[in-house]
Structures are given as structure tokens and as C-alpha cells.
């Protein structure tokens, strides 16, 4: 078809002949497309494979030249080695408690607020909501110096709450997401509950929460990933070796000159730190993807 806008008849007439010539060209096109994308996928996934591969290699093979993804003599020795050099058990524990508490904290303050912003009428509601959404454009780095001073004054340096409490404030996106979801619920169910004499508190628990479970699941997953992976804030607040999180503590492998050669244990620790987020992603990737579609992430 040479002309950009052909009339319907020629298109129909072209049908059979086009069908005959298509398969080979289409097949070649598809094949090259798949090859290109597979190459890109390989490139994307290689660093992570290399991390896992190094984690299971013995010290000699780690430094052996060449590209060997499957260790010739797989070993678990790097894991206990890593635990011997640094308090990785503590780091893991700190990461887990901080991530769980931050996630719960964000849910606990975002859910009632999202409900209030959609279904409760109170003077100043629009202003409050603008204030919440407005936090999304305040760059995180602007908040770190004053927040650090505040946490220091509270004597919360090197504590979990010092990391958790300020992090919980960064939840505007989740409030927004939950609100969007609550807005899709039919008003009738709220009216019905009202007639039955339900107050705002029981409506929140008996109507909002059960009906927006998918959105709560997504917020939980995203908030957990964010909290598990956060770096700048725990880097500033947690200075004691035992108080650090995995993301921050791991860096000692690279910083400390004594442990500069410990690539095996370092990659073993990195592998451990990657398991929770990857497991979560494996379990919920469909839900994460569909939320992006339905919550209409547009400008």
C-alpha cells in the first residue's frame, strides 16, 4: 500500500495477496524483535546473575579471569564468612523491622486520611489535601538537614524510630493512590451504612478497608520495597555498626580496606539483601503492574 490513506475497496482487494507475502517478512521481523529484546534482557539481568554467581564461588574462582556464570565448585562458605566479618544478622533484623514498621505506619496514617479526603465533609478539606499532595514536590534532600537536627534533639540517632518516624511522613503518593481507589466505590454503599447508623470509624473498617483490599496490597508492597531499599536517611541516622540496615551496612565491604578483597562474602550479603524484594516482586508483579494501569498514572 503506497498511499497513506487508501480507499476501503483496494484494501479488501489487497487482502489475499498481502496475506500470502506476509508470513516470511513478519516472521523475520518477529525473530529480530525477539533477538533484540532477549539481548537487552540478558544485559539487564546479567549483573544480578553475576552477583549470585560470585556469592557461590570459592575465593580462588572469584578472582579467576573470564566469564563463568555457573561456579565449577559451588560453595556456601561466603555466607558464614560474611556473617563473621560484619553483624549481618543485626543488619537483616534492622532492615526487616524498619521496613515493616514504616509500612504499617504509612498505612495507619494514610488510610483514614484517604477516606476523610473522599467521603467526610469538613471545612478546609481541600486545603488539607493540597498540603498533602504538595509534599510530593518538596525534594527529599531539602528535608534531611532539619530532620536530622530534630532526630538528634530527640536523641533518636542510631535508633530505629529515628529512621521510621520521619520516613512515615513521606506517604503522600499512597494517600493519593488510596483516595483514587476509594473514589471508584459507589456512594450507595456509604449511604446504606449510614442508614444503618454506622459512624465514620466503623465505615472505615467495615466498608472502606474490605473494599479496597487490592489497593492496600499494592501500597503495602510498594511501601515495603521503598522502606527496605531506602538509603540516604538510614545512612545519616545510623552510625553504630550494629544499628545499620543491610543497604547501608553492606557498603562497609567496599569501604573498609581490610575487607576490600572480600568480593565473595560481599556478593553473598548483596544476594541476601535482594531476596525479600525479589520474592515480593515475584509474588505480586501482576498486581503491581495492574495498579499502574488502573490508578491512571498520568501527569
Amino acid at each position: 500500500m503506497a498511499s497513506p490513506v487508501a480507499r476501503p475497496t483496494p484494501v479488501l482487494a489487497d487482502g489475499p495477496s498481502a496475506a500470502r507475502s506476509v508470513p516470511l517478512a513478519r516472521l523475520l521481523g518477529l525473530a529480530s524483535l525477539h533477538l533484540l529484546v532477549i539481548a537487552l534482557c540478558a544485559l539487564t539481568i546479567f549483573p544480578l546473575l553475576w552477583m549470585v554467581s560470585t556469592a557461590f564461588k570459592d575465593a580462588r574462582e572469584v578472582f579467576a579471569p573470564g566469564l563463568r556464570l555457573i561456579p565449577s565448585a559451588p560453595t556456601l562458605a561466603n555466607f558464614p564468612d560474611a556473617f563473621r566479618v560484619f553483624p549481618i544478622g543485626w543488619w537483616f533484623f534492622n532492615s526487616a523491622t524498619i521496613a515493616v514498621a514504616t509500612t504499617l505506619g504509612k498505612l495507619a496514617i494514610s488510610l483514614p486520611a484517604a477516606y476523610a479526603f473522599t467521603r467526610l465533609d469538613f471545612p478546609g478539606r481541600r486545603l488539607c489535601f493540597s498540603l498533602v499532595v504538595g509534599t510530593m514536590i518538596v525534594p527529599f534532600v531539602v528535608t534531611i538537614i532539619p530532620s536530622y537536627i530534630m532526630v538528634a534533639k530527640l536523641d533518636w540517632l542510631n535508633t530505629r524510630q529515628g529512621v521510621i518516624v520521619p520516613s512515615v511522613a513521606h506517604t503522600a503518593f499512597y494517600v493519593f493512590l488510596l483516595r483514587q481507589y476509594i473514589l471508584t466505590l459507589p456512594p450507595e454503599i456509604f449511604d446504606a451504612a449510614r442508614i444503618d447508623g454506622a459512624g465514620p470509624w466503623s465505615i472505615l473498617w467495615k466498608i472502606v478497608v474490605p473494599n479496597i483490599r487490592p489497593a492496600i496490597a499494592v501500597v503495602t508492597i510498594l511501601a515495603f520495597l521503598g522502606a527496605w531499599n531506602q538509603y540516604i536517611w538510614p545512612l545519616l541516622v545510623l552510625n553504630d555498626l550494629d544499628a545499620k540496615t543491610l543497604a547501608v551496612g553492606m557498603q562497609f565491604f567496599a569501604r573498609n580496606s581490610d575487607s576490600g578483597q572480600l568480593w565473595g562474602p560481599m556478593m553473598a550479603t548483596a544476594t541476601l539483601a535482594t531476596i525479600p524484594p525479589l520474592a515480593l516482586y515475584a509474588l505480586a508483579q501482576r498486581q503491581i503492574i495492574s495498579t499502574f494501569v488502573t490508578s491512571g498514572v498520568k501527569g
Partner: protein
Amino acid sequence: MATAREYHVGGRRVGWRGAGVPRRGRRLGADAVAGYLFVAPLLLLIGLFIYWPLVYSAYLSLYDWNLVSPDWRFVGASNYTRLPDDPRFRTAFGQTVLYVAALVPIKVLLPLALAHLLWPIRRSRAQDAYRVLLFTPSVVSFAVAALVWLWIFNPIQGVLNQLLLAGDGSRVNWLSNPQTAIWCVIAVSTWKALGFNLLLYLAALEAVPEEYVEAASIDGAGGWQLVRFIRWPLITPTFFFVLVTTIIFVNDEVFSAINVLTDGGPFDRTSNLIYYLYQQAFRYFQVGIASAVALLLSGAVIVLTWLQFRFVERRVHYG
């Protein structure tokens, strides 16, 4: 439950709009009280840890203070006016622009092209697999990602040099060479973010009504024309969302990579304004200078966001 819908209402029947709802009056009062109570914890926290810091930063930026000493010296606007005299600030500023110039096209356009490539094989197992693989780096922390790349870039034992220079005796010191270091940070950042934006574009493409595409095909529109005249206008909201958020956050996102890979070096050649701020505040304890930079950065972000709403949004076709 005698309801046609699947909505839970604590075991009660749903489905009719109540004519006898107690309107206004006492009910409104209860609602208002509950409303305030429900938003109070959130407002308190964002006030304390987001808005107060913004105000306090403005205050701090007028002082010379070292984070611990009881001496505060009022210096007026000189923390701002003296910034351009600092060569490290100028380097960081230039590289902030470089990060935007290099990473914005990569992060915005590359996933867009990729999304169009993957579109023809939508709803296939293959595309699912590609999507999952390409998105994986996005769920891994930057701290892990940077550490793994540190190992790959290692000049002696790193796999990159071993592959590139097999047999050859010369080595590239990827991270300590001022010419290459910043590109390493850019590469890691690209690797990390590619899948996320791809996902957003694919979701936007999926939302394009199939009838539009069919109608255009019947009228004889070919592959490129479908992209240009049907799909592109309908995914512009997503495109601008990705564009603006990338511009705003690109320099935040490279922080961890810079911190792990190069610590801003060599000779500040991978530093940006965010890293400069961090070093001024927490390494040299120049709280006033760091706060001045913080204020300038938020000003820039607020202006960018405003521009987005003012000019870009209007020209966007919402589907």
C-alpha cells in the same frame, strides 16, 4: 447476602440510595470531627518532617553554623551569593545539568521505543517474561545495584575489564578515571530505571482503545501512522509524566550510586548539587551553605512542576 454487587457492608443489604439519610446538622458535626481526627496524624507528620524543614532550611541558610557548636553567626544572603565562587559548587552544578542532559533522553525515550517494540507481541507469554526481566532492577535497591556494579567495574578483577581487555595488558580504571566515572554512574542509573518507565508506557499503550486503532487501519493507516497519529497523542499524558518526573528526580536517584561507586570523586567529577549538599552538611558541617543549596533546589523543582501544569498539561490529549 441479598446483594447483586460484591461490596461488603458488614453483612447488610446494599443497593438503594437512601432517601431518609439524616442530612446535615448533627451528622455533619460528627463527620467533621472524624475528618479532622483522621487527617490529623498525617498532617502532623508532614508538618514536622516536610514543611517545617522547608521553613527551617530557609532560616538555616542565613546563618553560618557547624551543626554542633552553640555559635550561630548571621551572615545574611552570603551563603547564596558566595556559592558561585566555590569551584566545587560550579563543578557540581555543571554535572547536575549533565545528568539531566544525558539521563533524561535515555530514561524517557529508550523505554518509549522499547514499549513500541514490545507492543506487537502484547498478551503473549514472551512479552510477560521480557517485562518481568526488564523490571527486575527496579525492585532491587540502589545500594545493592551499585555494589554489584562496583564489582563489575573493578579495574583488576572486574568482569568488564576482563571481557574487554582479555589478553591486553592495559586497564581502564572505570571509576577513578575522570573521563569515564560519570558515565558509569549514568549507566547504572539507566540499568536501574529502564523497566519502570517501560511499564508505564506499556500500561498507557494498553489503555488506547482498540477501536481507534482498528478504525484507523480500516482507513488504511500503516504501522508508523498508527504510532504517530493514534497511539502517540493518546499516550502523551504518560510521556509528559515520565518526562517531568525524570527531570525532577534524576539527580536524587543517582545519589546512592554516586555514594557507593565514587563518593563524588574523582575530583568531584561525578558529584551533583545533591551530593554537594550532602557533603557540605554532613562532611564539612557547612549547614548554612547546604541549606542554601537545598532552598535553591526546591525552588527549581517547584518552578519545573508549575511549568508542567501551566504549559505542558494543556497541549496533552487526554484519551
